[in-house]
């Protein structure tokens, strides 16, 4: 999970490009939904067809390509298995395409790019005109982003994030995005003003 976050901060430009190139939306939809029903750690899913792919690295790579927000509650273990499923399901149409003209598959390894967070190197597998797999061969470790990573709900359930109605005396004011007058009436700030 931590490494996935680093991928977000360190590879922002790169991942944007990958999202664009990954093809039709329905393709991604399938990739998202299928792994949920597959038991975690099923043996036949442990062997991605990409030769030489380092499993640890593959875990991190596809994460930034836009998981649905509903994944917020998933455990780290469950998240890690998703990309493996990604790779597997995306290959399924290729396997069924035996009668169609066989698309040429080639693997391209990008250069090592130095960023302020460390080195990044990506390898992609292209079938025809479509990227079917992307693997980060090298990603930076550690750094400030790592330290800052935290779930908002962890803070939410902690002392600083308690529902403020119960501890309003401890707050003087609330910062929030521009509130309309209607929004203000329903806001914490209004409650605090009223409590004075």
């Amino acid at each position: 999970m931590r490494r996935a976050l680093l991928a977000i901060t360190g590879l922002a430009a790169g991942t944007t490009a990958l999202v664009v190139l990954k093809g039709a939306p329905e393709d991604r939809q399938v990739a998202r939904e299928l792994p949920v029903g597959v038991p975690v750690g099923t043996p036949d899913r442990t062997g991605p067809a990409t030769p030489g792919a380092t499993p640890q690295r593959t875990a991190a790579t596809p994460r930034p390509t836009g998981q649905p927000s509903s994944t917020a509650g998933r455990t780290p273990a469950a998240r890690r298995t998703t990309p493996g499923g990604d790779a597997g399901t995306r290959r399924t149409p290729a396997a069924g395409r035996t009668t169609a003209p066989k698309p040429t598959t080639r693997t391209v390894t990008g250069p090592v790019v130095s960023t302020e967070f460390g080195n990044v190197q990506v390898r992609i597998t292209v079938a025809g005109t479509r990227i079917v797999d992307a693997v980060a061969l090298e990603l930076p470790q550690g750094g400030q982003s790592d330290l800052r990573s935290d779930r908002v709900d962890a803070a939410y359930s902690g002392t600083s994030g308690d529902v403020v109605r119960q501890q309003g005396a401890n707050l003087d004011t609330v910062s929030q995005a521009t509130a309309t007058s209607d929004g203000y009436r329903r806001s914490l700030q209004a409650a605090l003003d009223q409590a004075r």
Partner: protein
Amino acid sequence: MGTAISLDLATDLPAAVLRTLADDTFRWLREVDARFTTYREDSEVRRLDRGELPPAGASADLRAVLARCADLWADTDGFFDAYATGRLDPSGYVKGWAAQVASDRLVAAGAVDHCLNAGGDVRVRGHSSSGRPWRIGVRHPWDADATCLVLTGTDLAVATSGVYERGHHVLDPRRGVPARGLRSVTVVGPDLGVADAYATAAVAMGVAGVGWLDRLPGHLHAVVTDDGRLLRSTALPLAD
């Protein structure tokens, strides 16, 4: 601007003085609203934008605001854009700027302990009437009744930008589409107008805004992403 202003004066001054200071503050903010709003066609901003008011005829305040907006456009690689909607709308800077000016005036008048909240943009100075530094909650993006962080300090400008409800959005001015990736961005710094503009720019940048905030000198930040992660500067002045 259509927003609510809350002012807490904690310096021990005669009640009549405090009342005058509060009246002055609200009169100033109402005046700014009347001159800078985009919701009234007779405001100075609208008249300038329509070309009825020549730039040379604009007030010193408006010219200063437009100059700062131009600076901020450059500082944010174009992601803070007073023309993002296609017409002049400097309100992303004006609200924080007006509150900052009001706070500076309060300090000059001797009211060194105060908390001014202009539609969610907060400027605190000194201590609350309880004698401790001010405590500023940051709204939880998915729960209007909760905070996800509590900051504390004696001299902070805290501005938050983001999207809490469906239908609302921050525009990515480069592509002209609603920005995605960051639900809420809070910027802490010395100047409220600048902090607000930076927060808005970071939301417009999307996920890349996190890295941009990380490299921003003189400012601290807290970010809540669309998928519910809280990222923040390690030096952020958290309460407790």
